[in-house]
């Protein structure tokens, strides 16, 4: 025992410290630096203005500007749109591909492909589909009797255009997680439910869904964390437009920092986003500490 304990300490020192040091330098340090910058006036467009301590003024500026609050609302809206559809579609498709029928494994593999495509390529192929006048999506939809939709040029549709691209890419993720969970469910409750003569829908809502709930909650937190960071697809499709209808938090930070070169304001907005993400990450890890699913 003493030998093991002594060896443990050695392993800790030799093996763990380098990675933690690297992560500290590459993640924690930049975050702290963002915190430091957020209290300074740091304007790269005005190199001769001294970069002085300005207290809470950057925070006051963003938290009272309607533009910043607008980006938070758009981000929340987009999260609500994508998460709800991904949850319903993902669970539905998971129930399809877990049927005991030939070919399901292949279908499942094929459906995983969108997830592993660079988001910038996802944005580009959807831009190709949405493209005004030329894109194929409206052509396909015309067969379903849907009139031409100005996807990325109309303030009514632009956010949906982004949501659809994101839904296309990440529904497979919910499907994958749910399918794996469905397959690890124990068969006994089903046999009992079937003997009791319940309909398939009853079995699903009363037996399957309650068992899947913890997994679905965790998966949704992961999706929320990702959706909160969305950038690439919007950058390709609308760049926040038309007007500011699709301007999410990431684009606001980008614009403040790299269009207006107001690094202090950008850093303050970054720090607000870090606080929000810490809350989401904490909720995610809390959702993992459960005993009702093993």
């Amino acid at each position: 025992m003493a030998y093991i304990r002594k060896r443990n300490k050695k392993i800790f020192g030799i093996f763990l410290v380098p990675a933690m040091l690297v992560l500290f330098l590459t993640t924690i340090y930049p975050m702290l630096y963002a915190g430091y910058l957020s209290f300074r006036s740091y304007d790269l467009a005005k190199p001769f203005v001294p970069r002085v301590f300005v207290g809470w003024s950057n925070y006051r500026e963003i938290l009272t500007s309607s533009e910043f609050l607008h980006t938070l609302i758009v981000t929340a809206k987009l999260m609500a749109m994508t998460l709800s559809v991904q949850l319903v579609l993902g669970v539905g498709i998971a129930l399809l591909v877990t049927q005991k029928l030939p070919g399901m494994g292949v279908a499942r593999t094929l459906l995983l492909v969108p997830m592993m495509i660079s988001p910038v390529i996802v944005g580009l192929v959807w831009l190709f589909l949405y493209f005004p006048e030329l894109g194929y999506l409206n052509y396909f939809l015309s067969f379903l009797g849907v009139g031409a939709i100005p996807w990325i040029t109309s303030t009514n549709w632009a956010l949906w255009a982004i949501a659809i691209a994101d839904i296309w890419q990440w529904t497979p993720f919910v499907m994958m997680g749910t399918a794996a969970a469905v397959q690890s469910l124990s068969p006994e409750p089903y046999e009992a439910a079937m003997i009791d003569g319940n309909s398939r829908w009853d079995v699903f809502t009363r037996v399957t869904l309650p068992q899947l709930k913890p997994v679905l909650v965790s998966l949704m937190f992961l999706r929320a964390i990702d959706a909160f960071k969305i950038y690439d697809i919007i950058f390709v499709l609308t760049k926040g437009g038309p007007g500011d209808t699709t301007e999410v938090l990431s684009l606001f930070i980008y614009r403040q920092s790299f269009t207006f070169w107001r690094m202090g304001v950008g850093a303050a907005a970054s720090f607000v986003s870090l606080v929000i993400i810490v809350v989401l990450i904490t909720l995610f890890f809390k959702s993992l500490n459960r005993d009702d699913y093993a």
Partner: protein
Amino acid sequence: MSAPSKRQTVLVYLLLAVVLIVFLTPIYLIASSSVKPSPIMFQKPPAFLFTPTLEHYESLFGMRPFAKFMLNSLVVSFGSTAFSLTFGTLAAYAISRIRHKRMNDVAFWILSMRMFPPIAVVVPYYIIFKTVGLLDTPLALIIVYSTANIPLTVWLMKGFFDEVPMALEEAAAVDGYGLFETFWRITLPLAAPGLAVSAVFCFVFSWNEFLFALMLTGSEAQTVTVAVMSFWSSDAVQWGRIMAGSFIILIPGVIFVLTCQRWLVRGLTMGSVK
């Protein structure tokens, strides 16, 4: 679950066909448009049978330094993979072997490092790299991508190390193997599949990344994702080139899904599914 009846079977396959068409059409469009002659790029109904052309690939590699950008992407992806595997594997071994109640917190802390929004740290990165002269170099991206790849490697490798029985290591210790020797000659070879899986994850993540590459590189260290985006303009010729570039970029991801899908659940759901 009970086996579905005949009517249900037909329904399942019908629904699945619709799902597959919806999810695979964009991928088919990338592949077909990359070899489609420009005049019929947007032809309706879409041409399924046409004489494929390599003109878009030729212009992709001919007109712009795309080969150079591909080399940049490869250097960055391999670099970050090597860097992350080295540090991540060691940390994963420690986390797997140390029995301590705080170890879970350390694991979660490392894991959470890859969940932070890239945009929130891009400003400090930009200023730091500008100060030390690393802006627009592959090294900058290698460092930045490792912040996501090290936690991922730790997470994946811990699972593989957990499966190597302690009894083997104890036997090695009895035979006089030291700590490093045990790790290097006994444990690591047994967890070798994990190294392969982690490497593929890290490679594809780095290869696909766009935001950091866009903001931290210029004309020198530009990667393929940024290069393809820069082809953007509204005429059909550009679309051919964009689709050719997109097709090249999506190849590693597709190979990844086909070879490593067993580990996708573990690698991406972060413990949601046990």
